[in-house]
């Protein structure tokens, strides 16, 4: 009992402080407001957690402070939006993206190929650059000619804001037909594949570390998958577009979540394999690289989707209105799919305040199981402790690095697409969320998985309660003054909490001492 107390003293104190804080907060407001604010805090905490957990996994295992994580979260949101609102563009994009990825999916084969090539020293220097140049030229020539249903960001009638507005009011959008004009389909297809393979080979030539690779059919799984997706995308283009247009918004949302998460996973894998991997010996440069990636990502989003903010339409399952709404109990909600539900006479939005925390909890538990109960999780946990030792035991840590990076980015993308209907999409959503996630991790402990969850919930709660008190004001005891926290206090309070906690416990609440 005594040792239990000593081990978990920080945890117990935290829970106690949280309880005191919550009871104190409950005094100043009505019960229904309290419950709603609590749920909102949980929702913000869940989204923060999805970003923070991936960030902390990556930092723990790879020692990479991935400052592009917020941008990847944002890209996930925009990807999801595209699938829901413009399925035709999504289907058109499928083929070129799969082809671009396919070359990089062949990663382990290139060293084998490179070892067969005997070249002079100067040729060896020039070759990678020449290959990359050829690949860029090929991409630059084919990609603009690939038929993709592109909208005109500057033109209001064709801008994403208008699409969003139309989709929200239930109007079906016109399908923009796309066909190959200047290039024939097979030549564009093969050209992109070739460009991708040449480019990936060129990049892999920079890595001179000797590696022994044994080829087996496993090396070709990922490229086969990418090629199948590409072929399906180009062969059944119209059929898939019509199919997606015909889907109900629930299924479309489901597809969007799936697509955003998977594309995040693919993006993360490619990013680690090409950009992060050459820099493991220079951690500070990785930091700057991710900063640069973040700037590039934001600019790309601005170029494709434009600057104005818009909202992704909610799936019909959470968006019902009508006479029976708001629902008074759960069965009632199930029957009518109301957008709001009455809880202690307060209206709670089902998607924002109930669905998102549930998803957050599901992800929390499933990643926990992955970490604690599977072989991969065991390797990850061991790698966080001492990755050199794990490598010495004969485990291919580099492959696990790529997997964890992909998983982390996938989690961020999942967070993005889930947040899109409730928070809305804007160019700056990534940066503000990354700051939140960083604060949450610093509070909870940078490499601690439960710490990420605890920190996220604390950050979400504090922010939501301060926002709520900003509306109703706090009566300061023994005086007549009513203090209203102003909006700048919302981020400032969590930042100050982080600074205080880091000064008291440099490793965060649940972080282990080094």
């Amino acid at each position: 009992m005594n040792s239990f107390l000593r081990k978990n003293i920080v945890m117990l104190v935290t829970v106690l402080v949280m309880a005191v804080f919550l009871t104190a907060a409950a005094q100043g407001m009505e019960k229904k407001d309290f419950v709603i604010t609590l749920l909102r805090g949980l929702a913000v905490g869940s989204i923060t957690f999805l970003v923070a957990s991936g960030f902390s996994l990556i930092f723990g295992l790879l020692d990479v402070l991935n400052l592009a994580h917020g941008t990847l979260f944002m890209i996930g949101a925009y990807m999801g939006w595209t699938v829901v609102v413009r399925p035709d563009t999504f289907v058109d994009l499928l083929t070129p993206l799969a082809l671009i990825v396919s070359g990089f999916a062949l990663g382990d084969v290139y060293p084998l190929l490179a070892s067969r090539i005997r070249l002079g020293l100067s040729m060896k220097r020039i070759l990678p650059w020449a290959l990359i140049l050829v690949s860029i030229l090929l991409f630059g020539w084919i990609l603009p000619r690939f038929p993709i249903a592109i909208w005109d960001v500057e033109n209001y009638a064709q801008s994403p804001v208008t699409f969003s507005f139309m989709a929200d009011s239930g109007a079906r959008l016109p399908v923009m037909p796309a066909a190959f004009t200047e290039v024939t389909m097979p030549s564009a297809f093969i050209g992109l594949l070739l460009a991708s393979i040449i480019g990936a080979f060129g990049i892999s030539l920079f890595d001179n570390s000797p590696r022994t690779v044994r080829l087996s059919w496993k090396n070709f799984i990922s490229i086969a998958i990418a090629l199948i997706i590409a072929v399906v995308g180009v062969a059944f283009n119209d059929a898939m577009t019509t199919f997606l247009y015909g889907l109900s918004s629930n299924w479309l949302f489901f597809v969007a979540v799936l697509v955003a998460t998977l594309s995040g996973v693919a993006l993360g894998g490619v990013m680690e394999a090409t950009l992060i991997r050459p820099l493991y010996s220079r951690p500070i440069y990785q930091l700057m690289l991710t900063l640069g990636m973040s700037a590039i990502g934001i600019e790309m989003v601005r170029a494709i989707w434009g600057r104005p903010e818009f909202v992704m339409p909610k799936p019909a399952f959470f968006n019902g209105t009508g006479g029976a709404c708001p629902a008074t109990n759960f069965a009632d909600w199930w029957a009518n799919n109301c957008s709001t539900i009455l809880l202690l006479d307060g209206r709670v939005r089902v998607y924002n305040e109930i669905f998102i925390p549930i998803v957050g909890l599901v992800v929390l538990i499933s990643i926990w199981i992955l970490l604690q109960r599977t072989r991969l999780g065991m390797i990850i946990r061991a790698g966080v402790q001492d990755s050199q030792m794990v490598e010495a035991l004969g485990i291919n840590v580099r492959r696990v690095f790529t997997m964890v990076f992909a998983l982390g980015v996938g989690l961020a993308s999942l967070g993005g697409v889930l947040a899109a209907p409730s928070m809305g999409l804007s160019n700056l959503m990534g940066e503000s969320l990354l700051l939140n996630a960083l604060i949450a991790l610093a509070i909870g402990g940078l490499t601690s998985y439960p710490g990420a969850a605890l920190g996220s919930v604390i950050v979400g709660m504090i922010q939501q309660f301060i926002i709520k008190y900003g509306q109703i004001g706090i009566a300061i005891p023994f005086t007549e003054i009513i203090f209203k926290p102003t909006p700048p206090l919302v981020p400032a309070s969590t930042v100050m909490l982080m600074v205080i906690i880091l000064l008291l416990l440099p490793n965060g609440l649940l972080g282990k001492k080094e």
Partner: protein
Amino acid sequence: MKNFLISHRGSFLTLLLLILLPFIVGLFNGASPADVFVNGNGQSKFIQGLAIEIFILTIYALSFDVIFGITGLLSFGHSMFFAVGAYLTGIAIKSFGLSLPATLGWLVVASVVQALLFGLVLPRVKGITFALVTLGLGSVFHILVMSSEFGEYTGADVGLQGVIVPAFISPANERLRFYFMALTVMVLIYLLYQRFVNSPTGRVCVAIRENEGRAQMLGYNTFYFKLAALLLSSLTAALAGFLHTLYQPIVSPNTAGLGYTVAALLILLIGGVGTLNGAFVGAIVFRLLDYGLRRYIGESASFINGAIYVLFVLFIPYGIVGTWRLKSLQIKQGWERLLAKFNK
């Protein structure tokens, strides 16, 4: 004496070029030297303005180099040092009507206080946690500057504007004088830093960057050396902010944001981390690149900027000056071989 001149010929040539720059540009534009002296409008004035911005950026980047490149402390709140200087100057002149020397006096006080504030957290947190704490302190300052409560003084999210600069160095009318003032300040700061790095204190700072544990084992109290570096950095950054406020018509709250710290990081990355010359080279490349891209490409400039930084990180990790120093012997040998071939 002769040896000294020859071994520093690069620095002297650069200085000479910078002194002559306004006149050369003026002459190329067809103005008589007299016109250049009386600050006629035209291309020369514009180039001077660009150069002044580069000088200010150089001072700012140098101040980051001393804590990041020399001492090895990664601070994400560095823009706060700069913004405190910039805002304090503006507020002191505009709202309180102080003279320039009095403003500088207050700047010294403020920068010592904030360096001590950062120093307060130094012994507790190390490495990435220090970066996070400083990020937190910096963003609290950013939020304060942006908040409407102090809007009367700081101009909230619009930025501080309407600072009346004393007429004798007003950048609008006396641009040439301002140019030489900024140049002088930059050269003095550079010499000071050169002296600092080569002093015993500076050597210990380098030792802390390389291996803090070993420096402690040798009996140095590393805390005092880190604090000294922070103090120097804070004072210089505040000076850069001071010049920024005098030069720019408006102090944007972005100068307090994370982006401005990243700018310093990128300048050092381009020029070479830990090399003092690198700050100047990096500032030139950074500013001209930004200007050129914005002018000729427009909106998507920061996309190409970002791509260039990624390429820099991947392929020129030691920066321009750093790579030059590493490779200069090879390049020299290569030239000699090439010349020998031609002489045959």
